[in-house]
C-alpha cells in the first residue's frame, strides 16, 4: 500500500472532513446548510494549483480511492489507477476524492443530523441530483483553493459526475474521463433501481426512513444490493465463476437454502453491504442517478451540454457491460463530435461486465494514463 505523508496544510491529506456553511441551492429548489464533505487528497498541490484532479466515485463507493479505508482497514478501491507512478500519478497530480452528497461516509446525507430538529434527516433530507453532487464538490474545491481541474475522472456514477462537471463548469475542467457510464438513465436502469428501493421500503424496519434509533432495514437493503449486483456482472462472467455449481453440498436440498453458489455469493454480497451502507442513502443516490439526463438539462440535445467546450474528453466502455452498454458511450461521443469537442473513445474487452473498470484492466490503465499524461 502506498504511503501518503501527511501534508502541512490541515485541509489536505487522508480522511479529511469539512463543514461548509452553504447554503447549497439544489436542483429541487431546496437549500442545504450546512454541508459536510468528507474527502481525501493525495500528492502535492502545485503553487498555481494547476495540477488538481478530481476522482468521482460510484454509487456505493467512498472517498478512500487510493488510501487505506479506516473503517475496513482495506486498501483504497482504485489503487490500480491512482497512486505514485500509477496511471493517475499522485507524484504529478494533486488528487482529490470526496464522498458524494447524499452518501453515508461522512458527507451530508439522510443519516446526518438535521440542524432544524437535532435528529437525523431521514426522508426529510432533500432529494438530490448528480449536478447537486457536483456543486458540492465545487464548493469543496473553492475551500481547497482549487480553480481549474486538470481532470475529472469517474466510472459509472462517477462518470455521470464527470460529464456533469464538464457541462456545469466547463471553464474549470481541462479534461474529463468517463468510464463505463451514461448521459442518462434508461427505463431499464430506473427499473432495476426501483426494485431495490421497493425492497428497502418493504422492510418493516425501514419505518419511513426513521430507523436511526433502532434496527436498520438490513434485509431490504441486502435484497436491493443483490438485485443491483447482478447488473454489475456479465452473464458469461457469472457462468464462468459459478455456473450451476452447488454450494458445499453434493446434491440439491429440495428446499430453499442457498443450494447454488451464485445464491450464496449474492446473499453474502447483500449482507456485507448492509454493514457499510445506509439504506436511506441508497434510496437518495439511486434517485439521483435515475433523475440524471444530461440532454434534458440542455433543451433535449446532448450536444448543447458541450457547445464551445475546450475540455478534452476520454470515454471508455466495456463490451460485456449491459448496465451502461457501449451504445450509451457512443451517443455521448456523437454529441461531443457534434459540439466539436476533442474526444477519444474506446470500447475495451473484458469478461467482467460493468465492474470491469474496478478490476484488472491493463488497457484501461494504458488509455487513462496516456490521456492524462497528455495534459499540458
Amino acid at each position: 500500500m502506498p504511503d501518503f505523508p501527511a501534508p502541512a496544510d490541515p485541509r489536505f491529506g487522508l480522511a479529511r472532513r469539512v463543514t461548509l456553511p452553504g447554503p447549497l441551492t439544489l436542483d429541487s429548489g431546496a437549500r442545504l446548510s450546512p454541508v459536510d464533505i468528507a474527502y481525501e487528497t493525495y500528492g502535492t498541490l502545485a503553487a498555481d494549483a494547476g495540477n488538481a484532479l478530481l476522482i468521482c466515485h460510484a454509487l456505493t463507493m467512498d472517498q478512500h480511492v487510493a488510501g487505506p479505508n479506516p473503517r475496513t482497514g482495506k486498501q483504497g478501491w482504485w489503487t490500480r489507477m491512482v497512486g505514485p507512478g500509477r496511471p493517475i500519478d499522485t507524484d504529478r497530480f494533486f488528487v482529490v476524492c470526496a464522498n458524494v452528497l447524499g452518501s453515508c461516509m461522512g458527507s451530508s446525507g439522510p443519516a446526518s443530523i438535521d440542524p432544524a430538529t437535532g435528529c437525523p434527516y431521514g426522508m426529510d433530507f432533500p432529494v438530490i441530483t448528480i449536478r447537486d453532487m457536483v456543486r458540492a464538490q465545487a464548493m469543496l474545491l473553492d475551500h481547497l483553493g482549487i480553480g481549474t481541474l486538470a481532470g475529472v475522472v469517474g466510472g459509472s456514477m462517477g462518470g455521470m459526475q464527470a460529464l456533469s462537471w464538464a457541462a456545469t463548469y466547463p471553464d474549470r475542467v481541462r479534461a474529463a474521463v468517463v468510464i463505463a457510464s451514461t448521459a442518462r438513465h434508461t427505463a431499464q436502469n430506473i427499473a432495476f433501481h426501483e426494485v431495490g428501493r421497493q425492497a428497502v421500503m418493504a422492510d418493516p424496519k425501514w419505518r419511513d426512513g426513521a430507523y436511526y434509533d433502532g434496527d436498520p432495514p438490513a434485509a431490504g437493503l441486502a435484497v436491493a444490493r443483490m438485485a443491483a449486483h447482478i447488473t454489475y456482472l456479465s452473464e458469461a462472467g457469472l457462468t464462468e465463476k459459478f455456473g450451476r455449481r452447488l454450494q458445499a453440498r453434493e446434491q440439491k436440498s429440495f428446499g430453499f437454502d442457498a443450494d447454488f453458489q451464485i445464491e450464496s455469493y449474492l446473499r453474502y454480497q447483500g449482507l456485507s453491504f448492509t454493514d457499510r451502507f445506509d439504506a436511506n442513502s441508497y434510496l437518495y443516490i439511486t434517485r439521483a442517478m435515475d433523475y440524471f439526463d444530461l440532454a434534458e438539462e440542455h433543451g433535449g440535445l446532448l450536444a448543447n451540454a458541450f457547445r464551445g467546450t475546450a475540455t478534452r474528453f476520454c470515454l471508455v466502455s466495456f463490451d460485456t457491460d449491459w448496465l451502461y452498454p457501449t451504445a450509451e458511450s457512443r451517443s455521448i461521443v456523437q454529441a461531443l463530435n457534434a459540439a466539436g469537442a476533442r474526444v477519444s473513445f474506446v470500447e475495451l474487452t473484458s469478461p467482467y461486465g460493468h465492474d470491469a473498470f474496478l478490476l484488472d484492466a491493463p488497457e484501461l490503465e494504458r488509455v487513462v494514463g496516456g490521456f492524462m499524461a497528455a495534459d499540458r
Partner: protein
Amino acid sequence: MTLRADLAVIARHVPDGARVLDVGCGDGELMAALRDTRGVDARGLEIDRGNVAAAVARGLSVIQGDADVDLAGYPDQSFDYAILSQTLQTARAPDRVLDELLRIGRHAFVSFPNFAHWRVRLSLLWGGRMPVTRLLPERWYDTPNIHHLTVDDFRAHVADRKITVEGAWFLSGDKSTGGAAANFLAEHAVFLLTRN
C-alpha cells in the same frame, strides 16, 4: 520518425493549423506528425482498439469506430481536411465512405494501393494467383482489402460523381511517378478531392 510515403505526401500538403479528421488513423502516426510539426488540430477514427489505445496514449483525440458506420455522426464541413489513407479498399461501401469524407471535410485526401500496378498484373497474368506484394501482403482469404481498385477506376469514379480532383500524387516505392502512366507504374496513389 519517417512517415510512410503516402502519409508524407499528405503531411506536406496540409496547411498549418488546419482542422483534420484522419479516418483509419492507425496508431496516430500521421496525426502526431501533423500536430507536432504543423500545429494541426487533428482528430482520428480507428477500428482497432489496440491502435486507439496507442493513439490516445500519445495524447491524440481518437475514437474507436468503423468508417462504414461511424462517420454519420460528424457534422457537415466540420473539418478542413478529411483523410482516408490505405483504407478505402477495406470499406464495405467505399463510394459512400467517399461521399461522407467530402461531406465532413471541405477537402479530402484519399490514398490507396493501385491494383493495376504492373507487378500485380504480372502476378495475375503469369502466376494466375491473387497477388501478394509488398503493399498487398495478405493472401486472398485473410486480406482486409475487399474492394480492390485501380488508379483509372478511381479517376472514373470521381469524374462520374462530379468530384473535383485538386491534386494527385503517384508513388512507386518511395519515389514519385508521373500521372500519365500511373495506372501501370504507381504502387499507390494519393488524391486531393473537393466537392465545393
